[in-house]
């Protein structure tokens, strides 16, 4: 790699002040950016590593939401008691992603900004209604993840912005699941990843349903099938199959050298059906814990 200025700010303000140049890149854990730099696909005059910004490495319960710092690694996300309690399908997706060498360093913020459609967390975050928070020296803004994701490796972030936090609503009673199909190696990207978040009333009838799908099209997508298919019904096998078919009809599969569009569409239906079955069988999420103190990643990147 050519000589590149490397900055490791310890506050968000310092990080924001270092941005703006054309060849300035934010670094989370490097699983994507280091590779792009090494292969010459990206040239950087300056790399700003966010790993020392402590506030971005915490997971907090805040005003009915989980607030996850953009610098939280996938490993920390998957082993966090707060995340396992309030969004277990996110903990699951983060823990299934790639292998430990990636999860140990890849950050949630880097994951979302890189926007590879095959990632595991975006389908879950879409199903659970997550919001991303962006900061710049000019101020802050929040976007629904569905608006933030634009297309293949493309998001709504500006060169002057840092993705600071991901907020996930805490919804006691929600039931969720994430399933994926990886016909190749255990640590490969999935062919399809499907996430479901649903709610049912006391009579056992569906009242809310959100679905996220990854690895199929140019970006992870959010799906809300026609309520006529499911509202007021239990999630029986025929209902799950009908919903799966509706989502399969709704996706825009991008064929690549590995799988045809037709195949991806078919597997989408199957994975959504399985995620529905898993979510229907899952325990409703509990209420908030009594101790609101923030968690910090144990054993993850050095915090001395």
């Amino acid at each position, binding site marked *: 790699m050519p000589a590149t200025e490397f900055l490791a700010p310890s506050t968000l303000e310092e990080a924001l002040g270092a941005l703006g140049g054309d060849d300035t890149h934010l*670094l989370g854990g490097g699983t994507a950016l280091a590779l792009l730099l090494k292969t010459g696909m990206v040239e950087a005059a300056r*790399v700003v590593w966010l790993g020392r910004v402590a506030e971005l490495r915490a997971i907090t319960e805040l005003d009915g939401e989980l607030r996850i710092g953009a610098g939280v690694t996938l490993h920390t996300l998957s082993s966090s008691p707060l995340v396992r309690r309030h969004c277990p399908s996110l903990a699951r*997706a983060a823990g299934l992603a790639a292998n*430990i060498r990636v999860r140990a360093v890849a950050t949630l913020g880097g994951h979302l900004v890189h926007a590879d459609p095959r990632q595991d967390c975006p389908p879950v975050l879409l199903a659970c209604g997550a919001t991303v928070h962006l900061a710049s020296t000019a101020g802050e803004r929040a976007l629904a993840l569905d608006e933030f994701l634009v297309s293949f490796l493309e998001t709504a972030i500006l060169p002057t912005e840092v993705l600071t936090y991901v907020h996930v609503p805490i919804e006691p009673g929600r039931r969720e699941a994430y399933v994926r199909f990886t016909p190749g190696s255990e640590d490969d990207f999935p062919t399809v990843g499907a996430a479901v978040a649903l709610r049912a009333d006391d009579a056992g009838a569906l009242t809310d349903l959100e679905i996220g799908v990854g690895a199929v099209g140019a970006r992870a997508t959010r799906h809300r099938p026609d309520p006529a298919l499911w509202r007021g019904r239990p999630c029986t096998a025929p209902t799950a199959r009908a919903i799966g078919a509706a989502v399969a009809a709704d996706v825009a599969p991008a064929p690549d050298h590995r799988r045809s569009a037709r195949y991806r569409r078919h597997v989408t239906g199957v994975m959504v059906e399985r995620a529905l079955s898993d979510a229907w069988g899952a325990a409703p999420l509990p209420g908030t814990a009594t101790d609101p103190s923030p968690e910090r990643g144990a054993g993850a990147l050095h915090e001395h």
Partner: protein
Amino acid sequence: MHFRLNGQTADVDAEPTEPLLDVVRRAGCTGPKEGCWIGVCGACTVIVDGLPVSACLYLAGMAEDADVWTVEGLTADDPALVDAFADAAALQCGFCTPGQVTTAWWVAHRPDVDGGPGGARSPGGAGGPGGDPDVAALMAGNLCRCTGYQAIRAAVETYRAGH
């Protein structure tokens, strides 16, 4: 840069954007190997602050003040790690072995892993009842082209059972 390498203080000249792999090899720890160069094969695996990373993609600047262990330090600390691989004949050409051994150390020593009880890769998944996850799922990403994985799996299972 300043960091700890296998328990010793290390002060070395390094570019912050060069791979940590090059830094530890210059410092004399040539166990970690450059295999694929793109973070896929696992031959360059080292432990940074308790977790395995691909040293070929880990920028040296990120390791400032970190606690870095390579296969040299891990096996000097615990010869049983080497014995497990030798007894199971879990190597042939040996190129991938330092990475395999390094990941095996993590599999045995980190019960809080993603695949630990209640983790994503444990029976029941995240938030589930838990149980020991399959060694193969935890070792995924350390590629071997000649021995085959059964002997490696046996070595890691033996080593994990002893901890």
